[in-house]
């Protein structure tokens, strides 16, 4: 689906938001996709993605299903990208999220050299994808553009909340929860980084950008001080 396409934002805050996905075409080249997708994810780890995910098994930030009460004080905040790679056991959509262009360019260049044969897409500001194609000597094959939202848009939440919640295109990050995290950061109950991780854990496919979320949450606090 179009899970990374319709991220609400402005040119400035979307400029550091890149998702590189790999997907097999069902029934055509998905026969040995698992090994290729593991190779894709392993290669991505070298370029320090801010998130990594497999749309069926989960992302590098995950909930725990048998938690100890101590998690309220000593929660393991470290991402586990290796677990994502290990978990891939069926053809799926895998993704790596980056917050800087140089990492994307280097990663795409490596993926191109690996010549895995599965389709690779970049979700970003259109100009940045063109730049990446030029830098990596690739020719864009197809593009899907987002034209934003129509209909009863008065039902949508405020801009910052929408920026935070729409980063999960599958709708797993609730606008109410995003609002709650904004309030928690504003009132000093949690840091922007902690709040961004809470949000990221709900995004199963790993396309959530916790780095952008932390920046947005930090901005909320700073803006209120001005």
């Amino acid at each position: 689906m179009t899970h990374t396409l319709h991220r609400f934002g402005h040119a400035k805050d979307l400029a550091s938001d890149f998702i590189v996905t790999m997907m097999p075409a069902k029934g055509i080249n998905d026969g040995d996709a698992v090994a290729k997708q593991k190779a894709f994810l392993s290669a991505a780890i070298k370029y320090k993605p801010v998130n990594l995910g497999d749309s069926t098994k989960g992302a590098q930030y995950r909930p725990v299903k048998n938690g100890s009460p101590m998690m309220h004080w000593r929660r393991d905040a470290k991402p586990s990208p290796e677990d994502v790679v290990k978990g891939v056991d069926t053809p799926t959509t895998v993704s790596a999220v980056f917050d800087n262009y140089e990492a994307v360019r280097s990663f795409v260049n490596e993926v191109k050299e690996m010549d895995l044969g599965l389709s690779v897409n970049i979700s970003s500001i259109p100009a940045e994808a063109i730049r990446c194609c030029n830098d990596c000597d690739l020719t864009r094959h197809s593009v899907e553009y987002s034209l934003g939202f129509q209909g009863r848009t008065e039902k949508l939440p405020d801009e910052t909340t929408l920026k935070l919640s729409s980063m999960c295109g599958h709708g797993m990050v609730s606008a109410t929860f995003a609002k709650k995290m904004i309030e928690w950061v504003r009132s000093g109950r949690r840091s922007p980084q902690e709040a961004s991780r809470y949000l990221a854990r709900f995004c199963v496919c790993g396309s959530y950008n916790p780095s952008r979320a932390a920046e947005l949450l930090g901005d909320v606090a700073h803006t209120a001080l001005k």
Partner: protein
Amino acid sequence: MRIDPKKCVACGNCVAVCPMGAIVVDPTINRAVVNTDECVECYACFRGMSMERLNPSVVRGLRKVLSYVRLRFDPEPDVCPTSAIIPDELSWPRTIRRAFSDVTATHESTGIQGRGTEEVKTNDVTNRLLLGNVGFTVELGRPGIGVRFRDVEQVTRTLAEAGVAFEEKNPVTSLMTDRASGALNPEVLDEKVMSVIVEFAVPAERTRDALRLLKRAATSISTVMAIGVSVRCDENGDTDVEEIFAAEGYESLRAKTNLGIGRRELTAQLEGQEVRA
């Protein structure tokens, strides 16, 4: 989805995490309850929250004591302390809620996870969208509002009247009882889901008409919809739709770009066909 009243301690953590706002702590029984008409079976609460398996009576007792002395514990906001969230066995037509709302559920009609199809993400392999055509993905209910199939049918009927060709391999198309009119199976019309993607393609010269048609369709629904427009690039990697977008008052700040490095595998079945789309 339901919340086991024997386990729930009314901590309220699940209330905020529900994307549809379908969970509330009922003050008369002091337990969280799910409004099943609004719940879209997305599993965000069940799967997204971390779980502890604490004794509910002990937790309730502690909460009562702390509340009495006006103290409040500051727990992690994404934890259900007693694993009280329980998925229900679903039957038709409610099964459709999960199929269109839970990202990990595989659609029987497409064989892939999610609400749509591979779209142009694998176009370098499938060649499903050719030069000279423009593909549209209309995702109703996104972002975060949800949609009932009654609204979806409003849009499919408007599109059908204009004679658009719906994408064959799309879950919504498979729910149509009459593609010529855009009518959906009446059994599903009251079902609410996270979002639904209607897909169709038109010849490039009809792009403006399609955009105007969607603007008109958007006025007839009680939810929101996100519009995606797909094109195949020319041999230089260029497209000319941006000019049309600008002329119709759209600005595209986000796009998904297929890098063209996928290819068909040469299997016995595919031998003899073009290797590279």
